[in-house]
Every structure is written in structure tokens, then in C-alpha cells.
């Protein structure tokens, strides 16, 4: 019986290739073509990307879990020369956000005192010096396009909760005057991942708040207009020019689209998929300063157990959750494969942001 099955395969083969005049010639042709292409195009596309990135005059700052502590690290655009930007025991630095003028970084700092978690927003110079705390029990900071203000949201309850949408109200910290003002819209509730593309609008994910189930919205900076951008997913990031947006369209897809912002309207056009994985989760996309590349974090989905000081049991895309994740980069035009920049997922490398090379 076993032997009888073999002619069936042979029959199938003949049917599939029945229109070829000479199957042997087809194989020979393919072989020659492959050999020729390997001579003429010796570099792979990924190698090309490495070459381009070696010359790219910007660096990447990101969070990583190192020796029982969350710290901010810096690396070159090609993933080389990884080094610590912060080194503080007792404070977990997370979620770095670089000012558009490249002079400062705001970030989140988690402390644990008597079992109580306090997540605060901090500000420091690009080299890690002159650190100050600007807001207690706050999260999700982002910079205004002119680098003069930091927008952030307040933790909703006194008790800390790692779920990123647990926030209420929006506040602005003026870097020059050090004064804080509240956004005029009292309905602001359950925002996470703010990004500030132009003087009129802040973009954010909203989950179970402001009348929305789950949406990416544009919030008027100094008014109460709110516009649903009508794109599924979360964690938007605007390009430095304010003309593009990248976000996680779902757990497995990072997309890019054109962002059309006017004084009275905000909309998204020409959505295209930038990166996808059937198995891994893709989150935290961020445009490079020239808008040519997007970095993102990727790793396994599902709940991860807290494993060490400063870590929480939750899904790894959330801030403070230590999961087996790494940072990847891909060209915004979608050309070529993604390049993995960090290669040690046990360090939970996430939340990449771009900064000028001048950081030391």
C-alpha cells in the first residue's frame, strides 16, 4: 500500500508542471539566475540597512532591566555601543521622551516605599545631568513641538495600578517657568500614550473614557474639541514633522499613515502596514528625527510574572513589565526587512526614542 502512493505524487507533479516544455531547463535557468544574483548583489537588504544606520547621525535611548533595576540606555542607530545613561539604585527609570530640540529627556521614575508604588515624571538634560521631578503620581509624558512644555496625565486613583489607561486629566509643565497648568477639558479621562504633533493637537489612545470604548483621538491643545481618528489600535507616535503617524494597529502590526491636521480638523490618510509578525507582539513605534526609520519593541505576548524589584505581572507592552522583548528598526518606506537592534531579550529592551549623537 505504501508503495502505491508514490505514483500519485508523480502524477501530481506532472499535472502542475504540465505546461512546461522542459522542466529540466526551468531548473537550470533558476539555478543560473540565483548564482548570478549572488554575484551581482552580494549584500542582503538587512546588510544595506546596517550600512546606512552606521552613518545615521542619531542615537536611540530606551529602557532596559539591568541588575535588578530599570535604567535608561543609549545605543547607536545600528544597535552598537550600548551604554547606560542612568544608573540609580532605588529609582526605576522608564519611558524616555526626548525633547524635539534634542536638549532634554523626560521620563518616568518608579519608587517603592513601604510597598507603595509611586510613578512620577522626571526631567533631565540629554546627558543625564540636572535631574528634577516635575510631577508625582503621573504618567505618559510627551513634549510640545517647540520643546517648551511637557504634557502628562495624572494617575486616576491614589492606589497605583500598572494598567496604562488608569489616568484622569491632562497637565502641562512649562520647562522655562516650572509652572504647571491643567488642560481646560475636564472630561479628559483614561488617556495613554500622548504624542504632540503640532500646536493645535495632542494625539492619544483612550480606553473606556470620554464616551469612547477604545480609540485613538486628537485632543485640542487649548480647547475641548476631541476628534476620533477612526483607526483601530493604540500607542500613536507622530513624526517630527507632524505629517505622519505610526502606531500599533493591533498586537501584531505596526502601521504608518499620513496625518492631516488643521486648526479645526484632524484625520489620518493612506494607512500602510510597516511591520507585522504572526507570533510576536509589536509595540512602542517611534519615528527617527529625519522620519526615515521607525523603531519599535517586539516580544512575546501574554502575561509575564513580576521578576525582580520594579516589575509587575502584566502584559509586556505596559510600562514596568519585564518581558522578553527587543528593539527593532525598519525603514518607513517599508523597503527591506526589520533589523533587530538589541539582542538580549532577557533585559527587556523597550520604549525606544531617538536623540542626537551628542549625548555622552
Amino acid at each position: 500500500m505504501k508503495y502505491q502512493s508514490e505514483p500519485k505524487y508523480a502524477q501530481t507533479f506532472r499535472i502542475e508542471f504540465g505546461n512546461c516544455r522542459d522542466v529540466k531547463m526551468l531548473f537550470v535557468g533558476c539555478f543560473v539566475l540565483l548564482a548570478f544574483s549572488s554575484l551581482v548583489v552580494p549584500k542582503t537588504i538587512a546588510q544595506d540597512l546596517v550600512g546606512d544606520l552606521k552613518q545615521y547621525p542619531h542615537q536611540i535611548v530606551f529602557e532596559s532591566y539591568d541588575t535588578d533595576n530599570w535604567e535608561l540606555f543609549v545605543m547607536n542607530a545600528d544597535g552598537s555601543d550600548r551604554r547606560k545613561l542612568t544608573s540609580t539604585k532605588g529609582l526605576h527609570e522608564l519611558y524616555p521622551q526626548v525633547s524635539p530640540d534634542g536638549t532634554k529627556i523626560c521620563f518616568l521614575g518608579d519608587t517603592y516605599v513601604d510597598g507603595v508604588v509611586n510613578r512620577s515624571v522626571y526631567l533631565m538634560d540629554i546627558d543625564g545631568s540636572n535631574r528634577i521631578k516635575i510631577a508625582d503620581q503621573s504618567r505618559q509624558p510627551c513634549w510640545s513641538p517647540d520643546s517648551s512644555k511637557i504634557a502628562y496625565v495624572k494617575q486616576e486613583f491614589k492606589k497605583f495600578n500598572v494598567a496604562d489607561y488608569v489616568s484622569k486629566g491632562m497637565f502641562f509643565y512649562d520647562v522655562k517657568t516650572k509652572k504647571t497648568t491643567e488642560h481646560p477639558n475636564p472630561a479628559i479621562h483614561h488617556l495613554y500614550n500622548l504624542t504632540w504633533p503640532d500646536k493645535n493637537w495632542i494625539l492619544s489612545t483612550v480606553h473606556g473614557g470620554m464616551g469612547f470604548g477604545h480609540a485613538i483621538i486628537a485632543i485640542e491643545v487649548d480647547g475641548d474639541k476631541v476628534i476620533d481618528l477612526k483607526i483601530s489600535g493604540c500607542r500613536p507616535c507622530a513624526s517630527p514633522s507632524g505629517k505622519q503617524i505610526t502606531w500599533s494597529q493591533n498586537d501584531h502590526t505596526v502601521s504608518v499613515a499620513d496625518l492631516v491636521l488643521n486648526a479645526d480638523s484632524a484625520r489620518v490618510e493612506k494607512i500602510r502596514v510597516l511591520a507585522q509578525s504572526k507570533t510576536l507582539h509589536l509595540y512602542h513605534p517611534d519615528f527617527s528625527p529625519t522620519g526615515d526609520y521607525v523603531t519599535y519593541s517586539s516580544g512575546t505576548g501574554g502575561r509575564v510574572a513580576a521578576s525582580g524589584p520594579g516589575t509587575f505581572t502584566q502584559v509586556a507592552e505596559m510600562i514596568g513589565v519585564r518581558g522578553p522583548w527587543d528593539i527593532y528598526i525598519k525603514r518607513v518606506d517599508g523597503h527591506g526587512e526589520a533589523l533587530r537592534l538589541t539582542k538580549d531579550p532577557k533585559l527587556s529592551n523597550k520604549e525606544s526614542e531617538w536623540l542626537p549623537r551628542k549625548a555622552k
Partner: protein
Amino acid sequence: MAPSQSEVTRWCDVRRASYWVVLSLFLLGLQQGCTTEQKKAGERTSSRAIPVLSLSKIPLVLIPKGEFLMGSDEGPPNEGPAHKVIVDAYAIDQFEVTQKQFAAIEMPDPSQFKSNDRPVEQIWWINAAEYCNARSEAEGLEPCYDELDFKCNFAASGYRLPTEAEWEYAARAGGQDDSILAASAGNKIGSFACYAGNSTQKTELVGKKKPNAWGIHEMLGNVSEWCEDVYLPDYYQNSPTKNPCAGGEGGKRVIRGGSWKSPAKDLRVTSRLGRTAGFSDACFTGNTLGFRCVRRLSEQELKQLENANKTSE
């Protein structure tokens, strides 16, 4: 005779051992404070089901141990065969878990349709289980769920999600409630449930619809309710008779009861569906998904309750 308020307070200090006795007496003492809807529920409540308030003043109904015919031979294949099931005594929330209850223990409320007395929706199974644990801790009870793998410790004293059998037994009011069964067959369903035929495209305040014969509100409609069981379409083919609960690995958990979005045909006490529990996805779920909690009583609590009932009679 109902105890005075100071007596109740003193009793409360005893906490765990006299928990349900206190609750029964507490309820009798505070009957005047009940809403009209709750009073109506009490009037309709069978002598076999007893309304009580938890320590955090959440109304529950004590369901006696009993047996009933679970499932249906006339519905879709996953609802059959109809089979005898025995469930131990338990207490179930009289209403779907509300947003006010979430706020009371500072749990993040993911609901789209905000209002204190609307049910929590847009909630994953795992977040519902987290609420059960938080509520247990707030009342000094042992949490049922391990918050990493979310395995349920049925022996723990705290709150958990109802098994399918517990949910259906409560929804049927033990099988004695002809009105809601008739309603679920198409008659007057609007009296008992917020569903596609009468909703305003969102959830309704809990307790707005008539309760079933055990005084439990909105077992059908408003929000579909998460159950403890892993969803297995053919589970009834071989499920155990006593306290069945489908466990094991499975990304889907059972939802029951239909929602404000469901057509009348889906509002049946036997209707069962499976939905992704939310172990991996943090953001995306539906505004039709909510839940209510249960607690299983210890033998000691049951005896104390029985004695308290004899005293009150």
C-alpha cells in the same frame, strides 16, 4: 428579633467565623434602607433563596444546594444534552457588578458607558477575576485566583466568577421560574432584560428590569456575563454531575445571558458562547461583556446561616 445597629457592629468584629450570620441579620436590620426595586426582589424571592449584604454592602442572594436539568435538547448542539447537575450552596451577586463597585476599591473601570450604577463592561475575563480577588481582600477573605496563571482555588473563601452550572441554576431560579423562561422564549422579554429590542444602544442601570423568582436581576441581557469555565462546545457530553466546571488550557472562557446588543432569540438561560479571555491582549474587548461574582459557603457558614434563619422565623 433583628439586632440593633451596635450589636451588628460588634458582630462584624468577629468577621470570618460569623460572617454570613451577620450578613443575614444585617440585612434584616437594614431592610428599611433597601431600594424599592430590592424590596420587590425580596417579595418575589423564593423562601429557598435568601438576600444578604456583603461586608462591603453589595447585595447577594444565597442559593441553596440543589439539582436541576442543565442545558437543552432543543437548542444548538453546544447546549445539549440536557443533563442533571447538582450544585452546592453559594451566594451570587443580585446585580451585575457595577462601576460604583469598581471605584469603591479603586479598580480601573474600562467601561464605555459611564455611570455609577451601570454594569462594568469592556472587561476581560482576567480583569473580572482580578476584581474578584480585590473584592475578596477588601472583605478580609482569601482570594480565589492566582494572578499569574488565573487558576481558581475553589476552596478559598473569597469571590470568583460563577461556574456555568452556578450561573444557569441562578438564572433558572432553580428551574422554578416559569416567567423568565417563558420570557426567554419570546414573551415579555423586555420586562426582564435590556436587549437589542429595547436598549438605547448601550447598557441599562442595573436593577431596572424585573428580577427572576430568586430576586436576581438581569441574568439575561444588559451585559453578557463571564463564567469560570473554559469554553468547550461539547462539554455537556461528558461533564460531571456534581459542581461541573470545565477547566484545562483554553484561550476562551464561557459567556452567558446575552447583552443589550443581543436579539431576543439569544436571550436564553441555556445559550452559551466562548470569548477570548484576555490573557495576551491588553486593549481590545467588547462593550457587551460584564460579569457578576459568587462565593461558595463553608459548612460552618451554612450551619450558622441556617440557625440564623430559624431564629429570624
